[in-house]
């Protein structure tokens, strides 16, 4: 049998191919009713990996399984994406008409998602729930509002704590510091005693991962000296006295020898990996990483956490308060089911599961739940909660925070290791940022 391909047939074939390709690509994105049985297939994109070793991933899987088993209207499927890439992936996908139905967003990136059009407001859905549970939030849920609209529901709190490896400090005869100046001296002593093989006090100055590790220290340090990275008017304000003192403190660690140029290759992951490997003795790191770090070989109870020592004895450094949120994808076809899942995610039962994995719950009442109060890490969780309540500071995270943090860490590299003047280095980045905002 032969098929004659005349011009008209070829044109029709071409058009059909293009149409099929277009339809296929559209069908590949976003939510659908894949099973055809009326069950909404909801895509959840998150940085957590249910198949990995992080206890939070396992808790996530339990919650998703619990939700899928609790009702028959929707089935949630998890897609895990590296935390450094997830925001870009979601915004790109949403702008092509696809993307997830539910997306996990780190609070500092929320404004970027709103500007990128990847999420939608949830005020209508959350109104009644917030009327009941809103006051239960440990920190104001308003932090997830952009231009007056609620764009996400925080489900996790995190504080930044002083971490130290007790076994390493003991090995070198160093006592845990109680002030920042003592931390400088202790860090320098450890690094010197180890022949520079152990970083005494790590502050990651790599520009990878958007300079997040540096910002997680610079922000609370600036607050500790009475300032803010971004002022209430939305303008950068870190080149003021407080920011200069904070930067000078970072440089002091380097000058004293508490860390060397190895921190130029360290981001948040590398600092934590260093603590696990025993090549970092002290750091300021997030509460959310404690459980995973302790599970590493040889770490366990050798990792001790406490509020970050303050500028003077008896005081504590304020802690940045941030956390993970759950948002509704801009292109979801099943907003009701998405909201149902978000509520389930914020239920006391789900929050207790995350608490067992070392996550600080966002709702006060959850701490009274037997599953949390009687958990093996209950004492530590309560200490973190109290630190958050007493010294927590919610920062402003503008849409271009990623660029600002990258530029700031590049400037910090020069100020700490390259002899650049501190006020001038900060002022240059601040002016550039404020100029661009105009």
């Amino acid at each position: 049998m032969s098929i004659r391909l005349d011009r008209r047939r070829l044109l029709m074939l071409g058009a059909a191919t293009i149409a099929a390709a277009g339809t296929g690509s559209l069908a590949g994105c976003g939510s659908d009713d894949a099973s055809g049985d009326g069950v909404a297939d909801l895509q959840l994109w998150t940085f957590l990996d249910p198949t990995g070793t992080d206890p939070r991933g396992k808790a996530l899987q339990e919650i998703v399984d619990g939700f899928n088993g609790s009702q028959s209207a929707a089935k949630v499927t998890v897609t895990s994406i590296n935390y450094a890439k997830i925001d870009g992936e979601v915004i790109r996908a949403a702008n092509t008409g696809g993307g997830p139905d539910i997306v996990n967003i780190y609070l500092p990136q929320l404004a970027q998602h709103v500007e990128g059009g990847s999420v939608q407001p949830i005020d209508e859905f959350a109104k009644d729930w917030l009327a009941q549970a809103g006051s239960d939030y440990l920190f104001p849920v308003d932090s997830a509002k952009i231009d007056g609209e609620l764009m996400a529901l925080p489900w996790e709190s995190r504080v930044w704590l002083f971490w130290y490896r007790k076994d390493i400090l003991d090995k070198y005869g160093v006592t845990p510091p109680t002030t920042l100046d003592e931390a400088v001296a202790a860090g320098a002593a450890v690094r010197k005693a180890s022949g520079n093989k152990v970083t005494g006090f790590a502050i990651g100055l790599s520009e990878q991962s958007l300079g997040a590790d540096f910002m997680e220290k610079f922000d609370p340090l600036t607050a500790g000296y009475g300032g803010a990275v971004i002022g209430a008017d939305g303008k950068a304000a870190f080149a003021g006295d407080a920011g200069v003192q904070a930067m000078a403190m970072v440089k002091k660690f380097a000058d004293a020898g508490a860390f060397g140029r190895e921190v130029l290759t360290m981001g948040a992951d590398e600092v934590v990996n260093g603590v696990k490997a025993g090549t970092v003795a002290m750091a300021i790191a997030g509460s959310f990483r404690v459980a995973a770090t302790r599970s590493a070989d040889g770490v366990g109870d050798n990792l001790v956490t406490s509020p970050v020592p303050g500028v003077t004895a008896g005081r504590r450094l304020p802690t940045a308060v941030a956390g993970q949120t759950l948002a509704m994808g801009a292109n979801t076809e099943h907003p009701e089911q998405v909201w149902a899942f978000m509520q389930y995610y914020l239920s006391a039962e789900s929050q207790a599961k995350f608490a067992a994995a070392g996550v600080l719950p966002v709702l006060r009442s959850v701490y009274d739940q037997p599953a949390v109060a009687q958990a093996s890490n209950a004492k530590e969780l309560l200490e973190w909660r109290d630190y958050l309540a007493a010294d927590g500071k919610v920062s402003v995270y503008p849409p271009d925070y990623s660029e600002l943090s990258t530029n700031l860490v590049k400037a910090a590299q020069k100020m700490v290791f390259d002899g650049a003047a501190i006020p001038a280095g900060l002022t240059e980045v601040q002016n550039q940022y404020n100029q661009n905002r105009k």
Partner: protein
Amino acid sequence: MALYLPALVLVALVSVFPIAYALRLSVYRTRALRTVEFIGWDNFATVLGPAGWADIARTFVYVVASLLLAVPLGLALAVLLNKQVRFVRLFRVVILLPWVVSQTVAALLWKWLLNGQYGPLHGLFGGEGPLSSTWGSMASLIVVNVWLSYPLATILCLAALQTVPAEQIEASRVDGCTPRQSFFQVIVPTIRSTLLILVIMLTLLYFNMVTLVYTLTGGGPFSGTQVLSLNAFLQSFQFFKIGVGAAYSVVLFVLNIVFGVAYIRVLKGKNDG
């Protein structure tokens, strides 16, 4: 004409349209992934400003140094693999192995190897690995890039070497050529076309490389490994300044075209000669 149509539509969809779209984006101020207003050449003023020229200079260092190492290395290994020795198949597999490693995996592997504190080579570095300094970081990047791409050079050179007639080489030896003269005056001119195609392929590959740079150094420290392709990616998909990112891409595109045309002219000129 109708027979060409599907192919033309496909090429337009995957090549012409994205290029035209990038050109359009590059002259707009954008907000997230949306165009806001026409701003003419303002984005190019950023790309071709002082910091942008530094990026271009670093890109050239990275591309040229990688080429200077990868091509001779690939050719030398191809010559060795072309000899009839025992276990030649085993050697071929081992030498070509890096080719199957993805850029991300290679970057993470080398990052661990070069870590000054806990990497296997840490004894060489005394606490601070090469990735902690500007030049060490660029040197490491080039080495890893060459490690990843020399197998491609080896394969192409090996294929070309196997087309050189043995009689031609023997004749040159009978005429009194030393092995070195025979190689440079008989073999290399015979495989010149392949070498030039290889150089074009590697040049384009190196100019456009993002994953390796992003994962290994992230452009640092001190922006010492910040190359054009990385900045195009960062501006577009980390800072969501897609207009500036498109301007970087356009500059990269022009460089690719210029180098591609130059190589082809050299090839054509030699062949004509």
